[in-house]
């Protein structure tokens, strides 16, 4: 019988609130577990987990047009039909802008000369690695590439497979900032979303948006407030927001220079001995375990 795998997605809305450092700390406290770095266009979890790479796979997704200039008659139909302005007629030939192209393939369909071929793109890599806390699935999206959502889905599928293969009960997902396609791919089907926020006007605004997104997909949200003491009034407002929405408040982590210093050394905060922030992270971890039903 397969073990039931609990998936916990750590997100934030706003960037830089402490997602990755919390993910790494939770992994150290909850090991062995599986890690999934789903922030595929600015992946950082590997900097804290020192993974040893076991496998590298190519990520192919999407198609881009390749124009055969010999066959092109310069009719301009492709450029006329392209809604993304990725093709423009210049000196009687279509000039292609890869950064505007969304890979729809309409140009190839409307070309009567058969001069456009859609070719599959290699747009990143994904990896399986071993860390001190358990296996890790991660990726690197090619520079300026699209389809980050699909790469996130690939990383998550691999993470769940790793958990099942090794009989591990939990997958910790380090999610990207924002609320767009890679975030949606990171949280869909997860058991719990942990939103890491800061007591700032922007932190609260972004928390509301990301919690709204989780609610749309029917996923429970729990909250961790980082640097709660830089603005106690705003921390109070976040607490009230959580109570009103029946959102579990996992922890309030104080502003602590030890955090900044451990990050500058590339270490998870939990390793900082005697730090008030580290103690708060441990408390948050205990509540997270209860909230997610993550049996050790």
């Amino acid at each position, binding site marked *: 019988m397969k073990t039931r795998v609990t998936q916990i997605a750590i997100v*934030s*809305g*706003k*960037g*830089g*609130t402490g997602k*990755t450092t919390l993910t790494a700390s939770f992994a150290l406290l909850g090991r062995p577990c599986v890690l999934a770095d789903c922030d*595929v*266009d*600015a992946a*950082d979890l590997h*900097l804290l987990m020192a993974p040893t790479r076991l496998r590298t796979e190519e990520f192919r997704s999407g*198609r881009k047009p390749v124009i055969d200039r010999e066959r092109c008659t310069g009719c301009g139909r492709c450029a006329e*039909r392209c*809604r*993304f302005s990725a093709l423009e007629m210049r000196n009687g030939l279509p000039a292609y802008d890869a*950064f*505007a192209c*969304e*890979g*729809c*393939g*309409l140009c190839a*369909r409307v070309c009567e000369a058969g001069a456009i071929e859609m070719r599959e793109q290699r747009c990143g890599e994904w990896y399986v690695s071993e860390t001190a806390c358990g296996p890790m699935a991660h990726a690197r999206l090619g*520079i*300026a*590439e*699209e389809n*980050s*959502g699909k790469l996130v889905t690939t990383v998550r599928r691999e993470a769940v497979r790793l958990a099942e293969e090794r009989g591990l009960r939990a997958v910790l997902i380090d999610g*990207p*900032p*924002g*609320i*767009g*396609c*890679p975030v*949606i791919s990171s949280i869909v089907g997860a058991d719990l979303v942990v939103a890491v926020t*800061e*007591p*700032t*006007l*922007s*932190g609260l*605004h*972004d928390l509301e*948006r990301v919690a*709204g*997104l989780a609610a*749309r997909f029917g996923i429970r949200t729990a909250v961790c407030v980082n*640097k709660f003491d*830089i*603005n106690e009034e*705003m921390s109070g407002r976040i607490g009230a927001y959580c109570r009103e929405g029946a959102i579990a408040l996992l922890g309030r982590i104080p*502003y602590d220079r030890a955090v*900044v*210093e451990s*990050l*500058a050394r*590339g270490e998870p905060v939990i390793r900082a001995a005697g730090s008030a922030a580290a103690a708060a992270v441990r408390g948050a971890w205990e509540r997270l375990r209860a909230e997610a039903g993550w049996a050790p």
Partner: protein
Amino acid sequence: MILSVASGKGGTGKTTVAVSLALARRAAGAGAVRFLDCDVEEPNARIFLKPEIEGRREVRVPVPVADESKCTGCGLCAEVCAYHAIMVNRKSRQVFVFPELCHGCGACTLLCPAGALSETGRVTGVVEWGPADGILFADGTLRVGEAMSPPLIRAVKELIRPDGDTIIDCPPGTSCPVVQAVRKTDFCLLVTEPTPFGLNDLALAVEMVRALDVPMGVVINQADIGGGAVRDYCAAAGIPVLLEIPHDRRIATNYARGIPAFRAGEAYARLFLDLQAAVWGGRAG
């Protein structure tokens, strides 16, 4: 000049720098200063600039609608869709459209041999604009649940005008949303912090900006917390470091209350006036 403010890593201070730079540019007596918040997933600049919103426009992406009385069940629409946003039950001639997957390319509607498809619009977000302390402000707000931000980012950028200066606050990362925001700008400021994360993501962002062929400079925030690895990287890559902002709890507490760093005291105002001079003087000079 059109200036984009970006960063690989989130939370390094993009909005702080972009807002303060706009205020400094205005204070330096430049002509029209436009501020466009293109971080449409989490637009925050208005918290600091407090614009009086005067106008609002919904941004739509075209999506197909089927007239099933005309559908022959041929399935060509589903075959041509690169995004799997349309499916056809060939027997019952029922067409299923998944609007959130549709990119609005128009292939299905154009190519349907029976003329059974037409288009309607799906709202992906709103663009709002208005004055803020002499700055012409605009931002985009992505609808919660909407996956695709690039069309909305393009809509915000339609407000760029040839006169004066435009400062664009970009989303974090290195993928399609930030590419849409940075492309076709004249200069890109990358904001980073001297941690291993900041450096890792800065290097990714530099590759992206190079691919877009936009000249760039770096701002190091909380510059005194880590070692010199970011500075060394910039020197080796030939990218100028235009400003170093010290680690200061005052900036964090002001930020929390929605006060821009430019207004956090004389010393900070000076920093951003100097940055303004370095960016515009260095280029237009």
